């Protein structure tokens, strides 16, 4: 059966869609991706759709679904390289994909993920620090 490959790069998962998305393929991708996220503990998913020039409402909803599931599994999703025609179609279909981060190309998408992940790492550190300082006050 036809499958879209999911590549692992450090703590990111990279998906490039190079073929026409049909409904079954999208369903399989959703399933595979969620499995891979939980297996690898990936922090982020980058989906490159620069080769995709036709979308319908189902594919649009699938993308939103993937982002939502990834979020629950504690991974950020970035969709990169959307074609103008695809963007217009999605907007006309009323799918603004609010929960998804977007970037112009893979490069920018990586940069975006790195900053957002390192930011959250910093926040984690700060939280720990403030916790420890609080505890020192108590003692």
């Amino acid at each position, binding site marked *: 059966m036809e499958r879209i490959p999911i590549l692992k790069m450090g703590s990111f998962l990279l998906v490039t869609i190079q073929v026409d998305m049909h409904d079954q393929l999208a369903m399989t991708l959703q399933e595979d991706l969620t499995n891979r996220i939980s297996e690898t503990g990936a922090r982020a998913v980058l989906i490159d759709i620069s080769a995709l020039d036709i979308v319908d409402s189902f594919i649009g909803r699938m993308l939103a679904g993937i982002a939502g599931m990834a979020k629950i599994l504690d991974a950020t999703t970035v*969709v990169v390289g*959307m074609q*103008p025609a695809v*963007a*217009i179609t*999605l*907007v006309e279909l009323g799918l*603004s994909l609010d929960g998804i981060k*977007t970037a112009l190309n893979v490069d920018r*998408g990586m940069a975006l993920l790195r900053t957002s992940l390192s930011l959250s790492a910093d926040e984690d550190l700060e939280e720990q620090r403030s916790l420890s300082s609080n505890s020192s006050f108590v003692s």
Partner: protein
Amino acid sequence: MAGESSLFSSLLKKDETFLLSQWTDAQARVVGTKISNEELKAQCKEFLGLLVEATQADSSESTHGSAWAPAKKMLADISRSRTLQGFTPTETAIFVFSLKKPLFDLAKKELGGNSQELVNVIWSLTQRLDQLGLYTAEMHQKSREEVIVRQQEDMLELSTPVVKLWDGILALPMIGTLDSSRTQVVMESLLQKIVETESEIAIIDITGVPTVDTLVAQHLIKTVTAARLMGAECIISGIRPQIAATIVHLGVDLGTVATKSTLADAFKLALSRTGKSVGKADAFMHREIRT
């Protein structure tokens, strides 16, 4: 009927010089100096010739037959050129209607006291001339519509430029009313330009948009959303106080879109978001020396 028709053509041929001078005089009174006397005379003479040919070939009262095609074509040409010269509808249609008076005068002279016959002839003349006159007015209207359509197309192309302000920063100064077809063009050209220049930020300046209603706001939001889907951020600038009031009164939610009052402010925000800044050259020099 056939008798009246042949009378028409014989009337037209009978006293051409009288007809021509009366006709051109009547027109000159309405049109004034917008057209030279010689040109007017030449047009009238040519049209009279075509009219004679048409009435001889087609004896029916309607002017829809193929015999009338040359005369109608000439009328179309005349009304087109008059439209472009800025003639009013009256001044264009008078070309045909002013022929009535001299023709009726001729008919009166010809038939004398036979009033029954005269009424018939006048009716038959009126029928045909009215049809031609209405055709002229219609052509005038059509030519004007063509001009309007062409100008609209020009406006559509001229008023949607996407300009690059800086590396990764685009500006879209919108001018004129936003309707669906224009938004479509604007959206497409903006998104295309975002791909070409790999810009992260697009500033939509609506200083030149006269009014913002719910539909326009909807279109703006669509454009912003599409750009966001492609990975570019939008800033809306040039919102006048009245427009801000309208947007709030209409209850339009611009969401998380950044808005600034001037293009300069929006540009500043765009620069800071891309990690750049603009300052005096001196300050930069000092900083470089210090480091």
